[in-house]
Structures are given as C-alpha cells and as structure tokens.
C-alpha cells in the first residue's frame, strides 16, 4: 500500500483540503450555472426556511398577544381578547392594504418594463452576515437563470447568483462582490457601482474633474447588458477628492431599503437581444 494505514485518514483530509481549495479557485475565476447538488440544497432549504420564519412569526405574535395577559381579571381578559381580535382583523386589513399598494407599484413597474418579469417573495435574509444575499421563492421552473437582474418597486435589488428549480439566491447590490455599471443622472458621468457591505455602495472610476454632489441620482447605464439602462440604483451621499489617484471616492445609498424587502421582480431578458 502506498500510504501507511496509520496516515490514511490524514491523507484523506489533505485531499479534501486540496479539493476545497480547487473548488474555491475555480469559483473565483469563473461563475458557472448552479450544479445539481447545490440546486438540491437550495430547493430543500427554501421551504424549510420559509416554514421556520412563518412559524417563528406566529410564535412571536402569540407571545406578544397572550402570555402577557395572564393574571388579569376575567372582564379585562374578555375585553382584551375582543380588542386583540379586532386589532388582528384590522392588522390583516392593513397588511392587505399595504400589500396591495406594494403589488400595485410592482405592477406599475412591470407595465413599464418591456421585458418579461417574474414576481417572487423573499424567503430569507441574513441580516448580520458579511455576505449580502437573499433567498427568493422562484427558480428555473419560472424561467430564472444565473445573472438575471432583480428589482423592487424602488429600484435595483441585485442579481441572481444561484438557481434551483423553485428557489434562487440573489446577490444584493450592497455586497462587495457586486459590480453594476452606473451613471450619474445629472452629469451623465459613468462609473461602476460596487457594494460596500453595511455602508451601502460606492461609485468607482468617476474622474476627479467631474462635479458630483450629494443628492445626485445614480442610474444603471446598461453597458454590461445585465441591467437595462435607466434603473434607479441609489443616491449620492458624499463625494471626496482628497485621496490620491485619478478618481473620486463617492458614497452611494441604495434606493432600495434592503431590510424591508418582501417581494421582488426578476427580469427575464429577451432571448433575441440578449438583454
């Protein structure tokens, strides 16, 4: 035997380490379509995460509504229960009303876009992670593919990086791995909007000669072919020419409130144009 039995498991561990490094190197070098195993994991995780989040929401509601009421008199309890029921009813109507408004806005956006769009619900969102991604409940079964842009009624959310049959992972525009070709609406100066994590985004490669002011609107330039031209990316919050180099340092607040995303639109490009 080539490797002594004593060192066999250590050798296997070394092989696995090299394998993981190879997978990482390949993944950094080129982005491919989601593999079968990854699809399986996404597909299995999306409904579980959805169910867990819904159940936890219900437990949280029950805790808030009932546990604190223990020990109060019967009359008080009855009135509070009635009040809770009415509040619940009102809450449902209010929730339906707000959902209606949101969907109406999405519908308006949908009408305004010539491309085919798919409406999806946000299933999970890791808020405190270094990686800024969300999981949505639509996948290849609805025509979604890796690289397709994702929007909300307020602007660009990000792009799809993994797809399963009925779930997809979306890379948010605030992730450091996200780069979107953008332009400043007022001056038409073109750059690249890169994610900066919890700090929002930064607009890169804008010449120091360009005048950039806080409040300037940043739109997608449509250059890379992923995002159509003219979609709202964010608003400039600060620009500085103090550092060295040819370009300015421009901070951009995304137009979309990432923490409040509930429904999104995935854009399906026209097969003929490739856009």
């Amino acid at each position: 035997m080539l490797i002594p039995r004593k060192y066999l498991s250590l050798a296997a561990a070394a092989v696995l380490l090299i394998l993981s490094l190879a997978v990482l190197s390949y993944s950094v070098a080129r982005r491919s379509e989601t593999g079968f195993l990854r699809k399986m994991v996404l597909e299995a995780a999306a409904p579980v995460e959805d169910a867990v989040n819904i159940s936890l929401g219900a437990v949280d509601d029950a805790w808030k509504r009932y546990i604190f009421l223990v020990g109060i008199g019967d009359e008080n309890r009855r009135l509070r229960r009635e009040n809770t029921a009415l509040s619940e009813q009102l809450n449902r109507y209010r929730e339906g009303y707000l959902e209606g408004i949101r969907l109406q806005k999405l519908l308006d956006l949908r009408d305004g876009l010539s491309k085919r769009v798919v409406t999806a619900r946000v299933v999970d969102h890791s808020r405190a992670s270094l990686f800024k991604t969300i999981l949505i409940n639509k996948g290849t079964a609805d025509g979604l593919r890796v690289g397709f842009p994702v929007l909300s009624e307020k602007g660009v959310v990000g792009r799809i990086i993994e797809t399963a049959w009925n779930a997809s992972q979306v890379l948010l525009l605030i992730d450091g791995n996200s780069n979107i070709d953008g332009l400043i609406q007022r001056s038409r100066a073109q750059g690249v909007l890169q994610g900066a994590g919890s700090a929002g985004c930064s607009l890169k490669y804008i010449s120091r000669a360009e005048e950039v002011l806080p409040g300037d609107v940043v739109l997608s330039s449509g250059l890379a072919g992923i995002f159509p031209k003219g979609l709202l990316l964010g608003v400039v919050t600060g620009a500085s020419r103090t550092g060295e180099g040819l370009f300015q340092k421009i901070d951009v607040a995304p137009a979309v409130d990432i923490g409040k995303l509930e429904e999104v639109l995935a854009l399906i490009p026209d097969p003929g144009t490739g856009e």
Partner: protein
Amino acid sequence: MIYYLLLPVWLFLLVIVQITILDLVSFGWIEIEISVIVIIYAGFHFDALRGSILSLLIGFYLDCLTSTIFGLHMFLYMVIYGFSRIVRENAYAGKPGLIACFSGFCALLEGVAIVLLYRFVFGSNLLHEIPKILVPRAIAVGLLSPILFSLFQRFEVFLNVEDRRPDRRI
C-alpha cells in the same frame, strides 16, 4: 456508519437553524455562527476523516445558502479544522478558557480572511465591517463555545462517534 448517514441531515438542520432562528433571536444584530464551534469541536474530538468530511459538508451547505463565492466556506472551515487539530495535539483541549479564546479567534480569523479576499480579489473595501460585524460575532462565538461544547459532548455520546483517544497529551 450511522454517523455518515445522519451527518448530512443534522448539518443541514444546523445550518438552517443558524441562518433563520439564530438570526431572528439576535434581532439581526449579531451573526451567531455555531457552525464554527462545530468545526472546532470536530477538530478537538474527531479523527481526521470524520472531522474533515464534517467541515467540508457544513462549508458546502453554507456556500450554497449564504455565500457569494462558492467554495469559500468549504476551504476556510477545512483550514479552521486543521488549526483545531494542531491545537489539540499541543494543548489540553478541555479547558473552557482555551475553547472560548480559540473559538473567538477562529471566528475572527474567518471573517478577516473573507474581508481580505474581498479586498484583494474584488477590490471592495469591507474593513469597516470588522468592528461592526466580525468582533461582536467573535465575542458571541467565544462566549457560546464552552456551553455548546458540553452540549455536543452529550449529542456525540448519543451518536456514539466519540474518538477513543483522550484529550490530554502526556
């Protein structure tokens, strides 16, 4: 054999719990990364093959569900597992103080590695995330690790996968 059959399911559930329930419990302020504690526990207690398969699998799940760079967690967890084995060979790995410090250090190291990768591969500066996200996460992992180690020990007895070798090296 039962270990290899149950492992994918347990780890899948663990990752789901980590990215859903623990995120809600911490109100999205701190990422409670119990997966790192599991890897370190495996480094301290499991043999090389079992531990590395566990590290690779848990990294794979996290890469599928949260990571933006496929393979990053798999690689980092294999490295953390390797570090844990080195520590195990050179120190008594049963002390709560050592467990807490080492777990916190590994959580911080993992985060810094990701920040550096973003900096040098994608050109994105995430250094501001170190005090905001990474330090609280490392503290949380450090504080939780001794408690979770004792829980894992009971769970391990249930699965009957305990490594026969004692922790203390003479």
